[in-house]
């Protein structure tokens, strides 16, 4: 069920090719991550809109009991 940091980054990178992406595995269990995404496209969007677009990039990996990612702490901002 778990994902690697690289898999998460790849999914985000596919939608945000020029973003500055930092992924941390918070507990070393492949299940609790923190991601920071800094992208020019976030300019003028509020945090909800920014993070919705990152969740969309993750394509359902966050969804419910069958999601592969239990916990992803997200921070998003414009550069």
């Amino acid at each position, binding site marked *: 069920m778990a994902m690697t940091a690289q898999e998460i980054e790849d999914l985000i990178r596919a939608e945000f090719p020029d973003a500055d992406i930092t992924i941390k595995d918070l507990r070393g269990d492949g299940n609790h991550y923190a991601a920071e995404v800094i992208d020019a496209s976030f300019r003028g969007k509020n*945090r*909800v809109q920014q*993070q*919705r677009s990152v*969740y969309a990039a*993750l394509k*359902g990996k*966050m*969804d*419910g009991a069958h*999601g592969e990612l239990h*916990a992803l*702490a*997200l*921070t998003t901002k414009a550069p």
Partner: protein
Amino acid sequence: MSETQVQIEETIKSNSVVLYMKGTKEMPQCGFSSRIAGVLNYMDVDYKDINVLADDAIRQGIKEFADWPTIPQLYVNGEFIGGCDIVTEMTLSGELDTLFSDNNVAFDKDAADKIREANG
């Protein structure tokens, strides 16, 4: 709109502050829910807690409602504010105070300042 969506709409319109969470404000069942409930409790905000673990239709429905895949979800005067990360950021930056003030939601300003001091 489905029955569940109507029910959510009614809940967030008839309560100025609503937290959809896992567990209850007295006994949160997930660390992320616990974090927002803890902030609201500490700031002495009067809010309605909806335990999504008690109702699977709401648990799924709220994700569709907000177009947001995770729980907790905080609503103020009918508007989706964010999940755990956004609310934490807003608490520490003081934006949450402003949001509550602008929406005539009473809260303990000193308590909010203490949270910021302790996490500054």
